[in-house]
């Protein structure tokens, strides 16, 4: 029996809100990127591709924010994936102790990014920081300037991200590991496989799909880490931790260059799409090779 036409009324409230505040802005953003609108005044000019040309050819801060974003992404993807897989392997069995540790490691996931940012700002503080105090116990007097040194600041922020989300990804790996039939490990043990061999030839191929999900999620997550960076460093010192998201925010809402910032956000969208596609291809061939 066909549903009655009244069924479409069910979609109406959601569709109106979604259409106005999500779908329409997506196209409107593209339009703004070809103008020099300041976001406040009624008038603006159409400037064609000028915003894009300036952005891609002579904006060193944008180039820097792209580079920082890539550093941040690589650090988070590599360290977070490695740590979450390692601890998933360690905590895969459902013993009381393991479950308690999993619960603890997951806890930072539910904290607000602002909280994580402040917590780590305090850890890294160069005057009264906790890390400084701990290093002091071991006699280290001149530790690195975690957030003050432009060469390492972006990695310090990235580590806060890793701290906050490793537990969450560990849970995904544990779910993947627990789905592997136990007899496969028994066979490996009977055949005399070493721990490493068992991991390489039994565990890894079977959790590769989970790994693909984790890596894809982590990559996108690190592109969207606006709140953490904004609350922790605001992109400083001297743009050392500026990522594309904070660049866009600063230009639009502090410099009121809506047109230019929109162009940056479109470039950002292309970046995200390209990385998603590359990753999808890489991870698929990787799995096909197993």
């Amino acid at each position: 029996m066909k549903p009655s036409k009244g069924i479409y009324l069910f979609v109406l409230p959601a569709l109106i809100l979604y259409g106005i505040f999500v779908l329409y802005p997506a196209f409107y953003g593209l339009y703004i990127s070809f103008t020099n609108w300041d976001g406040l005044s009624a008038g603006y000019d159409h400037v064609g591709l000028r915003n894009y040309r300036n952005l891609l050819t002579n904006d060193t801060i944008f180039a820097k924010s792209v580079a920082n974003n890539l550093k941040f992404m690589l650090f988070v993807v590599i360290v977070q994936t490695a740590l979450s897989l390692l601890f998933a392997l360690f905590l895969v069995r459902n013993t009381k102790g393991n479950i308690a540790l999993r619960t603890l490691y997951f806890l930072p996931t539910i904290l607000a990014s602002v909280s994580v940012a402040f917590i780590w700002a305090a850890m890294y503080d160069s005057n009264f920081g906790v890390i400084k105090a701990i290093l002091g116990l071991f006699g280290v007097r001149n530790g690195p300037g975690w957030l003050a040194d432009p060469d390492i600041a972006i990695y310090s922020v990235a580590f806060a991200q890793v701290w906050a989300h490793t537990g969450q990804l560990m849970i995904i790996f544990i779910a993947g590991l627990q789905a592997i039939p136990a007899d496969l490990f028994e066979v490996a043990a009977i055949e005399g496989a070493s721990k490493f061999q068992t991991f390489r030839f039994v565990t890894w191929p079977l959790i590769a799909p989970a790994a693909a999900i984790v890596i894809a999620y982590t990559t996108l997550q690190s592109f969207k880490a606006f709140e953490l960076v904004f609350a922790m460093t605001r992109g400083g010192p001297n743009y050392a931790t500026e990522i594309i998201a904070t660049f866009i925010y600063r230009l639009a809402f502090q410099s009121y260059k809506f047109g230019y910032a929109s162009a940056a956000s479109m470039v950002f969208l292309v970046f995200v799409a390209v990385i998603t596609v590359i990753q999808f291809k890489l991870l698929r061939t990787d799995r096909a090779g197993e």
Partner: protein
Amino acid sequence: MFRTVRRWLNLRTISLFIFTVVILVPLLTVVSASLKTMRQYVTEPLKPPSPITFDNYRDLFVDYGLHRYFVNSLVLTFCTVVLVILFSTMVSYAIVRAGGWIGTLLFGLFSAGLMIPAQVNIIPLYGLVVKLESWFASAAWLPDLKFRDSLPGLIVIEVSILLSISVFIITGFMKTIPRELFEAAAMDGSSEWWMYAKLAVPLSLPSIASASIFLCVIVWNDLLYPLLFTGEKAKTLTMALMMFRGEYESNYPILFAGVMTVSLPMVAAYVFLQRWFIAGLTSGSLKG
């Protein structure tokens, strides 16, 4: 003796020990520093608070009226989650009932929102909100509509943004309910509303619970949209925290009392609903 030492000093134990310390030290620092005076925090950063002081909390609540922002966050989170769940279960029901290409189209349309990062959305959204407000203000026959620095305005925006993810989670689950169930009920003369309220929603409760928890955490912790759209009146807790940073620089004891206030409701809920939280947050984030 040597054997027992070796058994405990393996890679696993050492790694777990180190990681536990790395996770715990910052968390314990927040709790302990929020109960210290600035003076003790500076001179003895690693020692427990002595004497324990609640002055930081008093400053925040009595001098700064943090409870107002707490109430704002509470209202924002509650209304947003209820509305998102209501609207998205309705959409999911329509998708499942309609089926065929219409169902696929609707599902695709709502899922498309998952691919638009917030950073791409915020500029045109802000522009749109400015325009909407001026239209409503200029036309005499329209009521005054405020999106900026108004809780209802912020709720409308948050609801719109979060519909996609919620439709995605709930539709995935509702699809597993056998279609024949609805068809049989329709045959017996049940209305769509009855089937939605008495069959579809109760049978989808696990996914609704997951989605609700996911949405709660997202909205309660959100900074981006409050940052864009709130001033003094509709300020949320996270936003207030952000402002304190500017005012107190590195007065971490006070900042941490703020961090505690933002985190405690979620942590308390997490302690009681661990399994639900872990399931909800993992499913939600993966699909997002």
